[in-house]
């Protein structure tokens, strides 16, 4: 079995994987980082979104071996080491942008990528269009849109110390 090495949430990790092992399986099963979820098998639901070298990626559609040497950030890597939440995480709680929580890690990671590409002032139309790759069955998206707009704004304010996740 080939070995793979990468950095996940700032820590170097290695593991033995099959060639066909998906990144999401490596994260969930080898590293026991179960915050990244699997919700479909056609790469559409977005529950698996993580950041790979600073860019949002669907971890169900990447092989673990493709991430050799990459910097991967998952939902578990967002909060400060001391425990302070990322402004986007806070915004989801403040605006009730989650109910069952299953799509939420992927939503938050995707939201951060929207900010990276579109900035801190996001209007409703933009957010709705940009969430094409994320499905939620609980919230009807109304509060997710509000949360992302607020989170994006707060990220720009220095309400959070970080603008984007690397």
């Amino acid at each position, binding site marked *: 079995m080939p070995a793979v090495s990468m950095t996940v949430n700032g820590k170097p990790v290695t593991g033995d994987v099959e060639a066909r092992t998906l990144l999401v399986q490596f994260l969930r099963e080898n590293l026991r980082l179960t915050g990244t979820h699997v919700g479909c098998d056609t790469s559409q639901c977005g529950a698996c979104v993580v950041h790979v070298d600073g860019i949002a990626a669907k971890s169900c559609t990447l092989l673990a071996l493709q991430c050799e040497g990459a910097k991967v950030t998952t939902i578990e890597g967002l909060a400060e080491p001391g425990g302070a939440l990322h402004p986007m995480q806070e915004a989801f*709680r403040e605006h*009730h942008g989650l*109910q069952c929580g299953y799509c939420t890690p992927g939503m938050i990671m995707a939201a951060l990528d929207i900010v990276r590409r579109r900035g801190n002032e996001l209007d409703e139309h933009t957010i709705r*269009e940009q969430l094409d790759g994320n499905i939620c069955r*609980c*919230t009807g998206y109304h509060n997710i849109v509000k949360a992302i707009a607020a989170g994006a704004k707060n990220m720009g304010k220095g309400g959070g110390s970080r603008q984007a996740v690397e």
Partner: protein
Amino acid sequence: MSATSSATGIGASVRRKEDFRFITGKGQYTDDVVRPGETRAVFVRSPHAHAKIKSIDVNAARKMPGVVDVLTGAQLATDKIGNLICGWMIHSKDGSPMKMSAHPALAASKVNCVGDAVAVVIAETVAQGRDAAETVKVDYEVLQAVVDPAKAQDKGALQIHADIPNNTIYQWHLGDQKATAAAFAAAKHITKLDIVNNRLVPNAMEPRAALAEYDVGNDSLTLWNTSQNPHVSRLVIAAFVGMAPEHKLRVIAPDVGGGFGSKIFIYPEEVVCLWAARKVQRPVKWTSDRSEAFLTDAHGRDHVTHAELALDAGGKILALRAKTIANLGAYMSTFSSSVPTYLYGTLLSGQYDIPSIYCEVDAVYTNTAPVDAYRGAGRPEATFVVERLVEVAARQMGIEPTELRKRNFIKTFPHQTPVIMAYDAGDYLASMKKALEIADVKGFGKRKRESAHNGKLRGLGYSTYIEACGIAPSQAVGSLGAGVGLWESAEVRVNPTGSVEVLTGCHAHGQGHETTFAQLVSERLGIPFENVSIVHGDTDKVQFGMGTYGSRSGAVGMSAIVKALDKIEIKAKKVAAFMLEAAEGDIEFKDGKFTVAGTDKSAAWGDVSLNAYVAHKFTGAELEPGLKETSFYDPTNFTFPAGCHICEVEVDIETGKTDIVNWTAVDDFGTVINPMIVEGQVHGGIAQGIGQALLEGAVYDKDGQLVSGSFMDYSMPHAHDLPSFQVGLTETKSPSNPLGIKGCGEAGAIASPAAVINAITDAIGTENLAMPATANAVWSALQGAKPRQAA
């Protein structure tokens, strides 16, 4: 409402306690649970909708790398594992009981839908299990599939189950056929509609999962399962499937990622995992992939209905009748029989004073996935029938749709409908008035003209819905065929240091009970919100509960908590009386403090709770130590949330695409515990209803293949398909529970499809439109119709 608790008490939009773990990726869903020595289950499933199993050869599979065992339906039968059941008896018109087919957890001789499991591979990894599953050889004799429910009872249709002729499960009816016929005969106007309530796949974002573990030393089983009701699962698996006695079976429903009804039922997979875990003596975990979910999660809706409304010259409704064929799929799922009968026919009065109603429902088998409750369960189907009939009747008679509704609204309560339900409280005019204002219906004409300038057709559609929820008074549902009672339990444990744990029989899979239930307790006891924990989802912790569905957790679950808190208050006052050396009757309790009436002698909550357990101030003969009380609350009636939804659409004439430009919802849920959470429930329900009306539809081809078998082909609502919602509330408290709660979880899904279709048909000027009203469907309808002129 207590003055000291306004920030975290009833009516406050408290931010949720459960959010921290979800937004940090620390939730524990069933697939996240890992047990030492865990194996993975991969099911071998039929690719055919209808076939005999001539033989099955698992020898090659057993030898594949990483395979622990491969088990078949024949072995399940040999081990005498019982079949899955439907727990609600429905009788036909002729008095005969419903015809429930055998439903083994693994098919041994015959498969009846694509996805029907015939074997299971137990392997070290999922990948090895899948590799092995591919080598299982099943020799099928393919039979013709019965797919269309409207044709399942035809003379030429193949009989799916032995001894169940015409694929007919039951032929049920409700109401007064003669009186209804007489009313129709005398009617000035009759509106007729043929309606298909399109089949849906619930698609909670978390796929179903089951993890079973066998403890050899204690001969006991533990099941982690994505269940909305772990105790019901435990009862069914113990008493009917016969897997183990109840006291040797623990069921844990940890964090569950959405249910919408689909996770109520007891499915083959958890039964097989339990059986396999005991056989291989290692934990067995199965997690559905999305393709499996499409094939095997209970689907929703799937009614074919002919409906008629009789009115007098003044637009007063005289009668309603409906004949429905309900597709229940290949097997009867756990509550399937109740959905098109007592959760449907009983709501055909809508918000209206209708003297006579008659409803007939034939439930049929087809070679498709089983169909059961899905958000709204029967009530979206009823509301669609009623609200389409009323809107179309208004158009046909030239009466403005809100005016026709006003003429027929029930105005005095209680109101006995002709279909069992007795509505206890409501003000339908108030909700409609508020909705009209919020939606700025007055300005619609102008907006319609502006749209026309831009080549778009603008339309307005109403849905004044009512539902029966807060399921349910046990004796009442028992008399209607339910095999269980539908009360709820709460155990309130006060700890010596004054913090409180509430063990509830409800289950939260998105509804926020850890927050809302804590709001209730915190306000009532005058203790900080942070000091209250809500415990659910484990049959080892909560003794018994009926779970969460049917918008029942507020009305029934919280009522149980109130009753338990009443008992807590009584006992705590006794303890305080000993501490303060006063008579029990002189103790007052307010804002977390016990006071001797007319004095300044008092004891704080924390001191009283400590004294209850330290027990130094009283003898065992005077008072038992401890401060813990239980209540099993059986509701005295259903509750009747109701409201008015108004949908405004713009249809593109060139493409048929519908944009929802405005959505207004005004709902009466009685007392609201947390407005933010209630609004969230409404949003989610509306989204699912819009999904049904515009986008979704589970499609089987003539061979019973599920054509819409993934998110590629089944159109789930995305953020860009939906508008933001304007949500308002009116309030008439439910008189039948202590808090006056009606419940809110399903209303959005119940009201919305009718509002959407009413709006689009208003825009395009033809009623000839079925759900989902895709761009293609609307464009096609437009080709045959002249749009109505702008007002």
